[in-house]
């Protein structure tokens, strides 16, 4: 909540202090004068200025202040030079009273400084309370600890959202933008909705401000959506890599994996049973059966006496078979070797080419810089001109044929980058190929060496004395034990991975649930409710102000895309008269406040209208405006600056005088102040 309690303007001249000092109330306030040039706007300027919102007027620093703050001030017929000036604004944030001081014209104080006193104006003027300096409208003044708007944001209890910028980064929403929706200034404010909004690089600022004031959840929703997307991608990639890992591990032991879905799914205890390791042989046995088979074989070998009896012929047959197998494996290895060499060559040549392109790119960057350096000192060739005849020439040393177009350095750099991308893409593919061939080759080599060792044992057995221990049997047993051990390890790792798949599946389930909880369109139920309420308030207000264009109020809608009023899908500006346009701005600005109050939005609770009676608004409508403002609950503040140009207005105001604060200005706003010491 932001309430202006009191405004004090001090202007030092050789004749003494001049200025203005009046309290403001909660609720409705009027600043009235009989002539238009008596300084109502100067008083409002003081409020803008002390809050650091001068960008809403359209300028930086003290430039926006009127002549009375900076040059000369009139007292009757005498003009005095302004020596120093400054404004005090006492604000109330619902719990605490603070006073802001900012100097207008001063030799000693920067106008970028705003001093915050922990007390009211009287205490501030006598310096009897603690104070702290903040700076405003400089880099980071919205986020830095010593930035005034950062202070104001905390003090008002606003939590400004982080919003996307035009350049793609993200930043806090600026206070200036928010206040442009509620401080309607005399010159620019009546042109359009949020017409005083400065361009501070925020993307779609009008929408963001509307969403913030009404407290719509849309931005949070959009953030949540992108977060969900990240979660999905993360889960998918983890699932994928886990699946690849287990496939590779299984392949080494000649196993296939079945039952693991390609993409994340919800898996329960039943479907994890479907995940199986299958031996890639003819019978497709399960891993348990394979292990059992190995155990049985080992037992049988144990039963057999490791002696060579009369099995010479058997041994010979086995040897032949083993040699045949090993021949086949040899063939496979040599093919794989050929392939791997081919891939390696390709990778080498690609890497070489990429290196050349890198070099080319670097030199092209150099050439671009050189061209700039050269044209800095006026070298004609670097500017693309012939030094002799001053005709334009190409930046090329090849024989130039006029009908050929040559690439500029920029284009050339882009061209090279594209080439590099293509090459890098191919390189990745070849590297993947290389990797997979290498695993195949490792497996094949291992198998080959097993077969060869077996053959050797068999050969040794053939030439041994009959009573000797059979080397083949022992060798076979050791190999079998080793293999069994490996498969057991694989089986264990598979089981532990299954558990991880279960965990991933639980996360996936959570993700799906969160996704389903999000509304399908961009607005949550709450948001829709708020938009409807706003629309109703807006139309009610319009009706009260007698919006007169020949329109059906019922056709008016608030566009969910722009949050601006629309008539049959068109901006309603096109179909309304000038005075109607003023009514629309009244209605819109007040509807923001009404809706925010009712639906717990973030409106700071301050509205300023400078000269709301623009474009021949009739008195009756102006009264309607006053009544409408009056009807809104009193937890806010409105300041209206009005020129009294007829007796009727005066009579109306007299009615309000009993309950509301009316600051009557005579011919001049700034009067001589009796010094406190006197």
């Amino acid at each position, binding site marked *: 909540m932001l309430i202006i309690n009191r405004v004090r303007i001090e202007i030092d001249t050789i004749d003494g202090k001049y200025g203005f000092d009046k309290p403001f109330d909660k609720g409705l306030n009027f600043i009235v004068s009989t002539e238009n040039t008596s300084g109502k706007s100067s008083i409002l300027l003081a409020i803008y200025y002390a809050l650091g919102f001068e960008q809403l007027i359209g300028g930086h620093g003290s430039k926006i202040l009127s002549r009375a703050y900076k040059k000369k001030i009139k007292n009757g017929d005498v003009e005095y030079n302004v020596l120093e000036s400054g404004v005090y604004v006492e604000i109330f944030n619902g719990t605490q009273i603070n006073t802001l001081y900012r100097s207008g014209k001063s030799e000693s104080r920067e106008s970028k400084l705003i001093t915050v006193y922990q007390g009211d104006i009287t205490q501030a003027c006598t310096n009897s309370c603690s104070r702290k300096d903040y700076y405003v409208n400089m880099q980071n003044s919205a986020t830095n600890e010593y930035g005034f708007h950062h202070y104001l944001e905390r003090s008002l209890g606003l939590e400004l959202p982080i919003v996307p910028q035009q350049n793609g980064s993200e930043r806090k929403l600026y206070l200036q933008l928010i206040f442009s929706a509620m401080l309607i200034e005399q010159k620019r404010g009546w042109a359009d909705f949020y017409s005083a909004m400065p361009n501070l690089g925020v993307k779609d600022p009008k929408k963001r401000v509307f969403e913030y004031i009404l407290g719509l959840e849309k931005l949070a929703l959009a953030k949540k959506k992108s977060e969900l997307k990240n979660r999905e991608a993360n889960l998918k990639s983890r699932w994928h890599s886990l699946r690849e890992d287990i496939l590779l591990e299984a392949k080494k032991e000649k196993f296939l994996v079945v039952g693991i879905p390609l993409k994340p799914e919800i898996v329960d205890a039943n479907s994890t049973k479907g995940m199986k390791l299958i031996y890639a042989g003819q019978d497709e046995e399960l891993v348990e059966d394979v292990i059992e088979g190995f155990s049985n074989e080992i037992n049988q070998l144990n039963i057999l006496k490791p002696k060579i009896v009369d099995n010479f012929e058997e041994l010979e047959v086995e040897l032949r078979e083993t040699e045949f197998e090993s021949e086949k494996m040899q063939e496979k290895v040599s093919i794989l070797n050929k392939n791997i060499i081919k891939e390696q060559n390709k990778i080498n040549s690609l890497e070489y080419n990429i290196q050349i392109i890198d070099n080319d790119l670097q030199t092209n960057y150099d050439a671009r810089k050189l061209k700039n350096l050269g044209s800095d000192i006026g070298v004609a060739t670097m500017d693309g001109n012939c030094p002799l005849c001053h005709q334009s020439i190409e930046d090329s040393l090849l024989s130039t044929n006029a009908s050929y177009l040559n690439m500029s350095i920029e*284009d050339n750099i882009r061209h*090279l980058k594209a080439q590099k991308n293509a090459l890098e893409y191919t390189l990745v593919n070849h590297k993947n190929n290389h990797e997979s061939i290498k695993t195949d080759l490792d497996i094949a080599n291992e198998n080959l060496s097993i077969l060869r060792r077996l053959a050797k044992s068999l050969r040794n057995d053939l030439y041994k004395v009959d009573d000797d221990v059979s080397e083949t049997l022992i060798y076979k047993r050791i190999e079998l034990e080793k293999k069994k051990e490996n498969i057991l390890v694989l089986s264990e790792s598979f089981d532990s991975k299954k558990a991880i798949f279960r965990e991933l599946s639980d996360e996936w389930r959570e993700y799906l649930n969160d996704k389903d909880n999000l509304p399908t369109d961009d607005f949550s139920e709450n948001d829709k409710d708020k938009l409807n309420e706003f629309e109703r308030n807006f139309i009610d207000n319009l009706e009260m102000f007698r919006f007169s264009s020949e329109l059906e109020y019922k056709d008016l809608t608030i566009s969910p895309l722009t949050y601006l009023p629309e008539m049959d899908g068109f901006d309603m500006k096109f179909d309304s008269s000038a005075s109607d346009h003023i009514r629309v701005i009244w209605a819109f600005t007040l509807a923001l406040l009404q809706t925010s109050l009712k639906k717990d939005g973030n409106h700071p609770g301050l509205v300023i209208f400078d000269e709301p009676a623009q474009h021949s608004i009739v008195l009756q409508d102006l009264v309607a405006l006053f009544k409408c403002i009056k009807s809104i609950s009193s937890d806010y503040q409105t300041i209206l600056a009005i020129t009294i140009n007829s007796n009727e207005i005066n009579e109306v105001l007299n009615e309000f005088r009993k309950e509301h604060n009316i600051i009557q200005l005579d011919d001049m706003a700034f009067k001589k102040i009796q010094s406190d010491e006197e």
Partner: protein
Amino acid sequence: MIEIRDNNDVDFTQRPNPIPYNYRLSYKVSQICLIIKLSVARGGVSMTKIQMLASALLSDKEAKLLVDLTNGFSWNYLVRYDPTVIRALKYALFDDLIIQQDNQKYRLSDRGKEFVRKIENDEMLMIREKKFLNTYSRKLTENVIDMLMVKWRYDDANNK
């Protein structure tokens, strides 16, 4: 790129050609200026020397030939007179970056010196070229080049 329209006419769309950096006028002119500066020769730099150093910067292979020559390992060196270098020299000459002396050799003009100073001040600019030239453009003296040419005559005579 070829687009085939309904009427079966074939249209050719002209696309700009890429230019290798070695054939960029701006690059070559700068390279020549840098060669002359880093040669630190009081009597100027001959065209042959410029050609040899420019060739050496073309590739690592070319560079190695020059390195072997300057280190005295091999006299097996052929000077390539690259017409694009000659063309770039002419542009640099008329652009008042270099001056041809009475002894036919080249030196930098004041403007050329300023230009090279700018190149030298930027540490990220022409790193490879500076590194190579700093060592070998001084080692490759005009004497070495003269001896190389004398050797050609003997070889020529031997062959006849």
